[in-house]
């Protein structure tokens, strides 16, 4: 079990309110990702749920029981920190055993759980090493191991992959996703990387300045962003958003089209512009187009390769059914 409900939760540091009243329900077994730019309050929100910070007003319920005033240890949640927070003077075995030892569990049961966790996380050969003797990915796994042996109601991840190199990050992303399918425990994952959010989440919570901008599945957010901010934040490369008379033609104060929803031609199209930088990835090519009269720069994504040179004139045609329209407040129009 691991249903977490936040009711009218606020958090202030002195006079500064970082989380305005906020309601959110995280269902049992769900993989929820909090995503948003730096300083949007996503880590603070996670720490409020963990109990590491006190809530200013409001309530937190875990499995229907009020947990607002419970100390962190009593909430039945396990957290994986950005720095892993392994205890450097203890072996991997002792690190993983620490929460069980604190819970005064029988030594035989502790041994069993450590063996299980080590097998799941491929740590069996490293149990007697110190954290300092492990690689980044292994440390990450020890931190996860320390969390899973407690069999918590929910896992909290605070940007756990941001200290790993790119290749390892992709691998660990997969491992965490697989762990979730196997354990079926509620997981809350904080990241500023929307790729991590899109690939791992059942439900994404997009935050800005403490406000929830949108809650939904990754594809919901991709296809029907509720407002301009979500539209610009989700998707890589970013959606091209433009205003002015061009946008009004399509029926909004502002309009947006994703780079992958623009057709390219060298001879004719709705818009034209000059080719700037072309990023060739092999599978895709991203072309930055200038002087289109829409925005400073329009990004276009082409599957495969295309030979264009800097300064070439290029014609763009948006796929009209993929166009997003926003009103003066930045909210989506139907």
């Amino acid at each position, binding site marked *: 079990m691991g249903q977490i409900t936040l009711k009218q939760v606020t958090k202030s540091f002195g006079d500064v309110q970082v989380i305005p009243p906020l309601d959110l329900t995280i269902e049992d077994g769900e993989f929820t990702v909090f995503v948003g730019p730096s300083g949007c309050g996503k880590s603070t929100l996670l720490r409020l749920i963990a109990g590491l910070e006190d809530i200013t007003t409001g309530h937190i319920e875990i499995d229907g029981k009020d947990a607002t005033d419970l100390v962190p240890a009593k909430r039945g949640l396990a*957290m994986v920190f950005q720095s892993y*927070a*392994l205890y450097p003077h203890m072996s991997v075995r002792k690190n993983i055993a*620490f929460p069980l030892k*604190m819970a005064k569990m029988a030594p035989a049961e502790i041994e069993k759980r450590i063996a299980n966790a080590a097998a799941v996380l491929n740590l069996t050969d490293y149990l007697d090493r110190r954290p300092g003797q492990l690689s980044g990915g292994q440390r990450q796994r020890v931190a996860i191991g320390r969390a899973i042996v407690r069999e918590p109601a929910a896992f909290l991840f605070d940007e756990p992959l941001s200290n790993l190199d790119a290749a390892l990050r992709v691998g660990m992303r997969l491992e965490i996703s697989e762990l979730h399918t196997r354990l079926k425990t509620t997981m809350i994952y904080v990241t500023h990387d929307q790729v991590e959010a899109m690939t791992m989440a059942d439900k994404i919570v997009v935050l800005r300045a403490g406000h929830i901008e949108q809650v939904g599945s990754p594809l919901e957010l991709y296809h029907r962003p509720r407002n301009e901010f979500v539209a610009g934040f989700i998707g890589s490369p970013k959606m091209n958003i433009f205003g002015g008379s061009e946008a009004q033609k399509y029926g909004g104060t502002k309009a947006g089209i994703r780079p992958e929803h623009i057709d390219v031609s060298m001879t004719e199209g709705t818009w034209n512009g000059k080719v700037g930088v072309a990023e060739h990835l092999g599978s895709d090519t991203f072309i930055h187009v200038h002087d289109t009269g829409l925005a400073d720069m329009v990004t276009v994504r082409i599957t495969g390769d295309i030979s264009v040179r800097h300064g070439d004139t290029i014609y763009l045609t948006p796929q009209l059914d993929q166009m997003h329209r926003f009103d003066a407040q930045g909210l989506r129009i139907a």
Partner: protein
Amino acid sequence: MATKASRSAARLMMAPAVVLLLGWMLVPLIMTLWFSFRTYLPLRGGDLGWTGFDNYVRFVSSSAFWPAVQTTLVLVLGVLVITVCLGILLAILLDQPMWGQGIVRILVIAPFFVMPTVSALVWKNMFMDPVNGLFAHLWRFFGADPVSWLSDAAMPSIILIVSWQWLPFATLILLTAIQSLDSEQLEAAEMDGAPALKRFFYIILPHLSRAITIVILIQTIFLLAVFAEIFVTTGGAFGTRTLSYLIFQRVLESQNVGLGSAGGVYAIILANIVAIFLMRIVGKNLDN
């Protein structure tokens, strides 16, 4: 410092300092060694020639030797226990965010800047004097008889004075160590269900172990040579005669330079044993 020329220039410029420091250390050391093998009684005939290991044997077999060793150990261990324990507590306290933190930290460090002689005199005359001392007033205020600290409880008094001087040093080193502790580790331990006391013993104390070793190492070397505090308070009476004070008495009060020098050589050997022993522990700690 890359080229040959700049390297030799550096050596040349460092030479005066190196020679001076080396001379400063070597001359007294060699003179001590020299005198320790001679019968040298300045007021009773001066330098009377070689005696072999006579001085060494006499120093150790004197009835004052073992009590002096014991007093030295009690002093060193007493001060170490007090400064390390209180130092850890103070460091934790000073690490908490509070109003006036900067001033409080400076005040805590202040005793370290007071000369040993001065602080011992202040303690002796302003606090521990049985007639005019603050403690005497305090005792009388509660209707008790003032304690004459430096004669009735001489050893604890000296330990108190020396601890007061060294507590800032321990606090300072331990405070910087505590500040380097990753706060996420403490939060992780909190999430793992460790209450404050267990967090202290499982996380903070192991993290401090290296700093504690360094405090013990440095303090031991200095505490073995404590002299001024004893000289201005008890003058070595009432069971406060440490090894270094005994050496002083042999040389200046008994006017026996040879005997005192032999004691000095013992002290050098003792200090080096402690230093090597503790350096190994530090080295071991640094490896982990």
